[in-house]
């Protein structure tokens, strides 16, 4: 009888934890696995709602860069670094795009939104700095 009660308590506790903390833990573990080799994540919002975040990035020359661009806004945005021939195309609201490239030259490169997203669209830009190793 006592063993039955103990087993019942353990099973109940495991089930409740699995259905409450479980999804949160699984989400965090899976997300950290997917982003294990990510250089940076850039959040996109229209300039009046916060602009790119971060707007300045520094990466070493000659090393692979992996960027995830997350559009958390309610409108379509874009992301491009023309000098490095990087273009994510249109990123719909609620979507993410992952880009990989290797900058070969030291310098400062502008990135900006390629979709007319608001009346402040032209201010939606940032800088990627490529530095010596």
């Amino acid at each position, binding site marked *: 009888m006592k063993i039955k009660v103990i087993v*019942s308590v353990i099973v*109940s506790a495991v*089930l*409740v934890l*699995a*259905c*409450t903390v*479980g*999804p*949160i833990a699984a*989400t965090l573990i*899976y*997300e950290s696995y*997917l982003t294990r080799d990510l250089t940076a994540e850039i*959040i996109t919002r229209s300039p009046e709602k916060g602009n790119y975040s971060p707007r300045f990035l520094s990466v070493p020359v000659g090393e692979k860069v992996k960027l*995830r661009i*997350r*559009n*958390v*806004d*309610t409108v379509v945005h874009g992301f491009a670094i023309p000098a490095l021939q990087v273009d994510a195309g249109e990123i*719909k*609201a*609620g*979507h*993410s*795009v*992952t880009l990989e490239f290797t900058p070969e030259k030291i310098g400062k490169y502008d990135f900006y939104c390629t979709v007319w997203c608001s009346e402040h669209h032209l201010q939606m830009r940032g800088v990627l700095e490529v530095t010596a190793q």
Partner: protein
Amino acid sequence: MPEQNNQQQKLLGLIPLNWRFDLTSVPGVRWLLKRRWFPMIAILINMLVFMIILTSGIMGGFSSGNYSFGVMIVWILWWVMLMMFLVPVLSRTWCMICPLPSFGEWLQRLRIFGVNNKLRGLNLKWPRRLRNMWVMNFLFLGTTFFSGFFTVKPLATFFLLGGIIALGIVLSLIFEKRSFCLYVCPVSGFQGLYANMAMTEIRVKDPNICAKHKNKTCETGNKNGYGCPWLLQPHSFERNTYCGMCLECFKTCPFDNMAFNLRPPGPDLLVNKGRGLDEAFKGFIMLGIAVMFYVAMMGPWGGIKEWVRGATLRGWLSFVGVHTVFCLVLIPGIFLVTAWLSKLASGQKEVSLKTVFVNLSYCIIPLGLAAWIAFSFGFLLPNASYILHIISDPFSRGWNLVGTANFPWTPVATGWLIPLQFITLLVGYLVSADFGYKLVCQTYADPAAAKRGFIPLLVFLTLVIISFGWLYGG
């Protein structure tokens, strides 16, 4: 027509309202309903989904609602399932598997699957004056003031659901059993109202067995289960309104005397017991909200959309004011005039206006439910395809769990939208008129008076259906 009891009446003159099929006569169903782990296992699975919804409210960014797991599951999938299937077919089955009050209930019981009838917490009685639907009426109406946020912003949905869970826990520690579900939960009230139209019910098989049973274990509980958590008397159920279908009475009944019946829709509307102004106003409020939601979300009036989404405080306050007056004053006011005209036409002075008002108000329930089903078609068909995206990428992190993250937005059968809405509304109108006539016959003893008293009610229902027709088709 002389007043007939439920045993003799037919829905639309076709289906006998006393037809029943007890699903527990199927051995597997009976076995399932008597297990202690059911419906708890379903609640736990549902809780897992709700945790993903809550997590998506925080982790899912602040993007537009149609790419948010929380917004899509709660306001598209859940709402549509609730209005189009769960409530009209399975009564309050949602309450059976709802995870929101579970934390509070577990704290009361200190058990999850087992039975412990010595409940913890203060176990206070709910205030007598509030033992009705009024709190739920105002809370649900109040919730709709923020519909422009909940249906768009994932974080707002997180706060709404989180708030309901927190309130459920606090009230469960103060008041007895499911007082929160019975008197407070905003989702509970309208489910109870529309569950009167449901095609299933929990009732006793043989009332004589209950009459002879002195212990009434369905109320008090025993080693097999809890006394009715909804503070009801399962041995004398006549309406679905307040039964949360927790199935405890199936477990506690020593005579196996509880039935889970299939039935035609609507016989509870004719139960002349337990009716009140609170339930009548729930019907008006739900009808009013169905109209206002359509106007705000699907209508062509951009200015009203700006009001609802709170572009300016003044605009939002205007929406709150107009919405409140429409639901609490205008619709009930027009119906009061209808009831007064009905009484006048009937010539039955001995029947009070309040009785006429309350009794006849139950006939708008089928039309109200139909309006909600028609409204639900309006966002199900254009938006359902977003669900394929959000189940693959629930937190807007670029995941592709089941390979459907890039499934494009694909409206489905939208050419059929307006015909479907019109057919639904027409069925609702016919059923409302049918029950309206039955209710008039119940209210006025004299058949000739009933026929005269039905005319203003039919005019009211016809004006409502014409208004909906103009709104949906025009």
